[in-house]
């Protein structure tokens, strides 16, 4: 008995060390980003890293924002990410419900067709999707940016998996009571799917917030540029200090972080089922 407790303790300490070391390595670049965003420009080119700036240069934030139309870029990113998030919330919930609680001829083929779109990401369909948006005359518009991102098979799959666990008896009982299909979805199904919905919300927001290659192709004017496009060009313009670029990178992290923070509790449950996403 004593021996078992001893091995247990030594195992615990053996594991703690690499875990702490790895967590340290994981967190370090993030700390570096935040610290650099407050650093003075010249300090960047020194050979040692000053982790806590001797002087906090808060002005990096307003200065960085004013180098280009960043407030506008962030607004554009917000509009697009919100549209994509709402689109996913509506259509993935509907499709997930349809695929999990209804049986009809061809339902398995439909599920397969939907899952198969995971092999058709934007990187693969870039050229023809651009040609479609161009035909629609949607280049340099909000709808041109968010339309192709509105539904993601990942969200449908997540919702379907979650809804499969809800007993069908509830639905039958509600139907006998004369509830309509939409009402059943709204009153019975959705309240039980909160973890899955929270997971989908944060992933769809983060993915469109991160979206780069697609806006790069369809947007060519500042009016509709998203923040990643502005942030990349920021470094290319001569004389823009990297400290200010880091300041904008910190600002760009905050919205996703806040959503994550708010939805954290629901995420813990939804997360274990969401292994499809990275």
């Amino acid at each position: 008995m004593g021996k078992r407790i001893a091995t247990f303790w030594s195992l615990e300490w053996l594991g703690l060390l690499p875990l702490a070391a790895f967590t340290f390595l994981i967190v370090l670049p993030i700390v570096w980003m935040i610290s650099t965003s407050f650093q003075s420009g010249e300090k960047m080119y020194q050979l040692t890293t000053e982790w806590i700036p001797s002087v906090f240069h808060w002005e990096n934030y307003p200065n960085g924002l004013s180098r280009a139309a960043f407030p506008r870029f962030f607004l554009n990113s917000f509009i697009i990410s919100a549209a994509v998030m709402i689109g996913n919330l509506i259509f993935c919930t509907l499709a997930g419900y349809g695929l999990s609680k209804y049986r009809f001829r061809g339902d398995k083929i439909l599920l397969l067709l939907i899952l198969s779109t995971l092999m058709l990401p934007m990187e693969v369909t870039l050229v023809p999707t651009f040609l479609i948006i161009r035909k629609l005359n949607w280049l340099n518009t909000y709808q041109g940016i968010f339309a192709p991102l509105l539904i993601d098979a990942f969200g449908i799959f997540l919702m379907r998996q979650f809804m499969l666990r809800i007993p069908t008896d509830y639905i039958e009982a509600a139907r006998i009571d004369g509830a309509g299909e939409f009402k059943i979805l709204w009153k019975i199904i959705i309240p039980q799917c909160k973890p899955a919905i929270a997971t989908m919300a944060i992933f769809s927001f983060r993915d469109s917030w991160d979206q780069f290659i697609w806006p790069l192709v369809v947007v060519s004017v500042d009016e509709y540029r998203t923040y990643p496009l502005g942030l990349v060009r920021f470094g290319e313009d001569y004389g823009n200090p990297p400290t200010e670029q880091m300041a904008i990178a910190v600002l760009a992290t905050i919205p996703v972080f806040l959503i994550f923070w708010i939805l954290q509790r629901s995420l813990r449950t939804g997360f274990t089922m969401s292994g499809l996403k990275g």
Partner: protein
Amino acid sequence: MLRIGRAQISVSRWQLGYESRIQLWGILFILPTILFFMIFKYGPMLWAIYLSFTGYDIVTEPKFIGLNNYINIFKDPIFLQALNNTLIYIMGSTIAITVLGLGLALIINTGIKASRFFMSSMFLTNIMPILAVCLVWRFLFHPYGLVNQFLSPLGLGRIDWLTNSYLALPAIIIVTAWRFAPYFMVVFLAGLLAVPKEIYEAADIDGVTPISRFLRITLPMISPIVFFVVVVSALLCARIFLMPFIITGGGPGGATRVLSMLIYETGFSYLKMGRAAAISVILFLIMMVFTILQIRFFSKTEEY
């Protein structure tokens, strides 16, 4: 009588319609998604396949040129290099993500104190915008950057991570692992928690060593999760664009140019849409292999 008969007929008709009316609702719920995927996924893919047999520069009409695009790209050393880079990147990143993710999950699963703290701090890598990740790491890998500062006690000298053609792709794989391993750690952890405790208790009584405990019990029990993580991270890495685009710009000498970057350059810098479509089809075929594996995995682990 007639009235009753009619009422009876309409009732039975209504009852017959009841089931199919419910089915109709199911189809109705899925319909917008199907239409969307037709327009923005399957339609474009078919169009890409068509375009891959043509020469098209946006200005003039597409001209049918048969298999020429495919013949040309497979003669093109730049394409072959990008294909090679993509495959190496997929393999390297997938191995790194799987090994690190599983390792971390195993440690956390021993019930270490403060594991929740470790988990949530690690999770920060996953919510940071990927562009911010790339910009930060570009600075960290700078010859005078943090990575070399950390390695300096080892006496390796100043390593040119991003301008050395042998180190640039491994550097990007390191960033990939940094970003994704903590996420897949959570997936592994869910799998580990599902292994019945009784099995371990029985093994403890039999005095099984920790190593054979891992190889004989844990690994076989979670092998479906391992397979799943491998396939999903391979899919994720096959489409990588932003990391090489920002961190190295595809350099040095194309050592980190991947297929998605080549599609972008060919199609939108050189306006060779037909040729870019042909490269897209190749990337699609790579992704299809992993997707088929993934779907087979789903249909094996659960009944549709």
